[in-house]
């Protein structure tokens, strides 16, 4: 994708901010900025992954048992859906580079659709947990796992589960908004071989959100 940068040189000047000398410079800056933002996102989630690791090391058996309480089937379906949405997003970037208007709009719409389905399934999972009382530490109410010292250790697992998937869901919502914005602009015909930075950077963001899920799924559902 970076090879495309040179073709961006002839970008219509209306999209070049005055303080950049060339469109290439602008493209490079946007791209670097997005990567840096993604780094901050990784570290943001990183805190939760560390918390996961710490509590897992402290109470491995709790994590093993609690993972059984998650619905692996729904989790797996969601994984497939997100992988599919990554594909459509990558395709959208390609379409914009090749100037395929219709393809771009279709791919973006599909991506948004997949994201909404993902959230729907997540919602179904959450409501199951709610009914079963499989909630975070202070709200956990179920006799499934052994109670230790006045609180249920399984609650710790679900605290981490809700923190991680909840934060991830917020990122999905933000992603839907961002892709929606790109979709609007592409309906307006803003993008083409000469200018596709927003599609590209939003795409990067979306891939990161997927990637986080690719880690969450096995950590929470599978290697219990």
């Amino acid at each position, binding site marked *: 994708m970076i090879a495309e940068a040179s073709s961006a040189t002839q970008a219509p000047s*209306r*999209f*070049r*901010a*005055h*303080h*950049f000398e060339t469109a290439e*410079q*602008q493209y*490079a*800056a*946007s791209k*670097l*900025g997005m990567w*840096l*933002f993604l*780094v*901050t*996102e990784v*570290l*943001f*989630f*990183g*805190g*939760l992954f*560390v*918390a996961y690791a*710490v*509590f897992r090391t*402290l109470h491995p058996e709790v994590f093993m048992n609690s993972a059984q309480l998650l619905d692996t089937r729904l989790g797996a379906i969601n994984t497939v859906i997100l992988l599919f949405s990554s594909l459509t997003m990558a395709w959208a970037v390609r379409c914009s580079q090749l100037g395929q208007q219709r393809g771009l709009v279709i791919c973006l719409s599909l991506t948004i659709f997949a994201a909404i389905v993902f959230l729907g399934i997540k919602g179904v999972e959450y409501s199951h947990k709610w009914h079963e009382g499989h909630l*975070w*530490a*202070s*709200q956990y109410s179920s006799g499934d796992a052994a109670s*230790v*010292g*006045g*609180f249920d*250790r399984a*609650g*710790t697992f679900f*605290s*981490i589960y*809700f*923190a991680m998937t909840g*934060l991830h869901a917020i990122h999905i919502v933000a992603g839907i908004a961002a892709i929606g914005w790109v979709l609007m602009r592409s309906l307006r015909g803003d993008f083409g071989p000469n*200018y596709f*930075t*927003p599609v590209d950077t939003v795409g990067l963001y979306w891939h990161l959100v997927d990637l986080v899920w690719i880690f969450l799924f096995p950590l929470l559902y599978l290697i219990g």
Partner: protein
Amino acid sequence: MSTTTEPKHRLPQFISPRSTTEQPLSYLTAERGIRSWLFTLDHKRIGVMYLIGILTSFLMGGVMALLVRTELLTPGPTIMDADTYNHMFTLHGAIMTFLFIIPSIPAALGNFVLPLMIGAKDVAFPRMNLASLYLWVFGAVFLVAAMGLNGLDTGWTFYTPYSTTTNSSVISATMGVFILGFSSIFTGINFIATVHTMRPKGMTWFRMPLFLWSLYATAIIQVLATPVLGITLMLLIAERVAGIGIFDPALGGDPVLYQHFFWFYSHPAVYIMILPAMGIISELISTFSRTRIFGYRFLCYSSVAIALLGFLVWGHHMFTSESAMAAVIFSALTFSVSIPSGIKIFNWLATLYKGSISLTTPMCFALSFIVLFAFGGLTGLFLGALATDVHLHDTYFVVAHFHYVMMGGTLMAFIGGLFYWWPKMFGKMYNEFWGRMSCLGIFVGFNWTFFPQFLLGTKGMARRYYNYKPEFQGLHVVSTLGAFVLGVGLVICAAVLVHSLFRGRKAPPNPWGVATMEWETTSPPPVHNFEDTPKVTDPYDLEGFVLNETSGNYERRPAGITSSQKPSEVKA
């Protein structure tokens, strides 16, 4: 980011036709009205607005500090009750760190200077820059709102489970700090992208002014450390609101994990505070010794080294709560940061050697910085060593240590930098005599306030204490008196600057004879920074300038003159 159109100058009705032909409109006067400030994308205006916000916060935090000191005049109640005191020192610490010192140099001075130093028209993402300012404002509102709600009595560190059980407004305050974190991240991303992609041809990494190196190193920390604070505070809020049980031992959580998370950000954050300060000092020492900075490359490397090593030492705040094993490792790593810090001090001294030193106001602050930072840094060694830290941890020794490095270090450099770039920012010179006097007042008052605190600490006076044993009173009284002297010094300093705005002599483009690019343009600079794109030159080639006695401006030596830089044109 991408849709900005070429801005057109408004018709300058308010300025006489004569001045438009002679001199380009400055960024301050090119557009008028409050809206032209609130919606500006100009990094210079954003920097100025940051400056106003930051100085207001400093004043607020400073007044609280004076109240804290007054309360400590006697053991037991003096002017307030215990709870009020706890709220007071917490807000003092939180405001000083999150609202004042972390954004101080990068967001106010850095924003103004960075694009100028690389001869660019703006930072890479001007909208994001404005967004960062607004985030700062929102964050400040949340943080200060805590004061009006139930206050904040957790200490600036928000340790759990105290912070999850107290009934003060922890949520509002931590939301504020969370938002301020994003403001800081935005500034960091912007600076990295600007330095990477917008340097002009010919300005290689090793031809960058050292201030840029230090801002760059700072930005790395801002981007890598701040998100961890963000997630930590989110979890803290979730703990309070919903009882998520990550940090609360009553729910199976781990309070020491919170401490690790907090310091993973907050130790690197102390280098967010000191690195840009060191960058300023490098510029000032070289400029006012009228000689090339000594050991340029080592200074570059040491900035990056401090930034990276700073990530490895956070556990030294927890020697009394973490495992002995962790304590040993963190103690060993802690000392590593001292080496690049030492390099800086010695290289600055070597720069003074055989220089031609003039004690201007900025230079006075720079020299004070070296003395006070060396002192504060060396006292860090007592804290980094395991056996002594066990005794000194959470005593006034720590309080004195961090005021020496934060106030004696960063604040001195900040004020020094402010005096240095003031003529560029506002086009006015200030009164040198009173500038120096304010430095003297601050230096004396500062040591008077904080040196006694080292003694208090070694004797066992714990920090965050409202009440204390009578034998400590003598030193507390001394310290409190010093704080008022310090306050007088700072008021003089503010008065000098305010006075200059109204009565100051007009500043020439290059009053100090510096070779970095921000001095190539008029003071204050025009909206687009430079009338002609400046030529990239050696940033420390001070010998290429001679003082023009009549204009007070330094001009390039005739040999170096190019058509666009004729003295007659440069002259104000």
